[in-house]
């Protein structure tokens, strides 16, 4: 009996102790300076948060696509060796789904984020933000989502409505939030 009381008090002391101490970890995180983050490190959200300044249109994007993208993705985003980027509208629930920006992708901001992040495949990071905006505009134009002359920039891109967006849904993860 006394032993049990002793053990319980020890446990109590441990928790009181740990609550009172500042550091329960080595605290080896060093303050991160704003200047240490590259533009790529910041996620681009569907509301446009994280988009850099810059702009481009499909007219400007077409020749860039011909240089940097066509060898993998084909003329006008079709019949390439890799992912088809245009067309396929209405095919998603049919027997031969073709998942493209126009037929499937829910957010236009994703196009900018991914092209800047990972493309061109062999030289990621080699395009300027203006060039990425222009290629984004051209890909949206190929899918009939924007017209050829529309200026795509940090303000207009988040407003572009993707045709298949309404078909996406997800469960809420809001329960049990927080330690």
């Amino acid at each position, binding site marked *: 009996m006394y032993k049990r009381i002793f053990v319980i008090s020890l446990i109590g002391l441990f928790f009181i102790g740990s609550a009172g101490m500042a550091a*329960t*970890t*080595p*605290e*080896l*995180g*060093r*303050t*991160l300076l704003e200047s*240490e*983050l590259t533009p*790529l*490190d*910041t*996620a*681009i*959200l*569907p*509301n446009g948060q994280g988009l850099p300044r810059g702009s481009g249109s499909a007219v400007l994007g077409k020749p860039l696509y011909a240089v940097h993208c066509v060898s*993998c993705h084909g003329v006008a985003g079709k019949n390439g*060796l*890799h992912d088809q980027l245009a067309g396929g509208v209405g095919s*998603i*629930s*049919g*027997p*031969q*789904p073709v*998942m493209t920006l126009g037929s*499937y*992708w*829910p*957010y236009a*901001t*994703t196009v900018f*984020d*991914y092209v800047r*992040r*990972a493309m061109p*495949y062999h030289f*990621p990071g080699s395009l300027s933000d203006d060039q990425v905006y222009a290629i984004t505009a051209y890909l949206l134009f190929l899918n009939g989502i924007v017209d050829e002359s529309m200026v795509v920039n940090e303000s207009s891109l988040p407003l572009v409505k993707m045709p298949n967006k309404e*078909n*996406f*849904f*997800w*469960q809420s*993860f*809001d*329960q*049990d*939030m*927080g*330690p």
Partner: protein
Amino acid sequence: MSKQQTDSMAAADNGLLHRRFFLKAGALAGTALLTAQSSAENRPTWMKAPGKGMSEAGVPSRYENHVKRLPVSRPGTTGSGASRSPLEHLEGIITPSRLHFERHHSGIPEIDPEQHRLAVFGEVQRPLSFSAAGLCRYPLVSSIQFLECSGNSGALIAPSPVDASCSVLHGLVSGSEWSGVPLALLLEEAGVKPSGKWLIASGADAAGMSRSIPLSKIYDDAIVALYQNGERLRPGNGYPMRLFLPGWEGNASVKWLKTLQVTDQPAMTKDETSKYSDRGEDGRAELFTFEMGVKSLITSPSPGLDLAAKGLYQISGIAWSGAGRIKRVEVSTDAGRTWAEAHLDAEPMPKSLSRFRAAWRWQGAPAVLLSRATDEAGQVQPTRAVVMQGRAPGSFYHYNGIQAWQVDASGAVRNVYV
């Protein structure tokens, strides 16, 4: 043990024996060991002279060179694709690190740990930067857990069964002991603001692969993994550090972890929208279906491991669930007409592979082998027909249907649908 004795241990039809059959048999077998003499001239070559010297790191026997991964990369690339684990040649629940499956989106970066930093920022009080050496000083936790690509077993949606091996069909799952820092500790240091709901994780590969993770998972059991099976992560699995989200689809456990940005919403990255989303036949698509379903798989016998002659065999396989522990695995050798409970090697661990075994006397007639897992949440592994219900054509992620292996009269094994 005589055949008469074994027949008394029948657990289901078509030769399936009680799950404790091999345990009982072992007790009798011990008395019959041979003590044959070996004269000097009868020594095998490797006993006639001292063997090779020691080495700093071991390699498998050269007679095991056939046990290897199957890397397949997209055309024009060498590092955008997957290497599948040779499941049918492995036992237990730990996949050797050199054979752990890999899935890359732009090759394997060769990262200098001295130059690599993990940045934690966004909706936090104190943006922080961590080095790998620093993280190694934190209190680490270790767990034996599975990692499965959500595209694993995707070939099983094909209208007719693909004639392929167990590893080609299902090799995007592996098991390891993962050791790392609970990510909640790092977020605690950074101080998440009330607005923080999601974490955007990105990697230091050429694709800057990125995924959005709800913070509830981070506080539950996410770690920044530094070690795999006792050694530092290998480059193909994220050296010097990776996110590890137990039980969740592999793609979300971002390798070569470089940034963790706390946000109030998901980033809707390319992978989590255009790729790892589940399409229904109604045209709707579900995002963020992270948890891997309850699943099992007979790894032996399986295609390529054909039965040589009728007789006693051990059916061996793996079972796992993203919801927690495996509670039970049942096995059938008559296409699901009758089932017997399989033996589980050890007390199942949560979100880990569990090895199951069953004794089977194959009488030489055609048979269809199935396994069916149940997890501690009460979920039962579904049939292929149930998994396919409501799926759009080509929607292949999160396939966890019961696998059927047909054994024909010659002992050859192949993938079939039942």
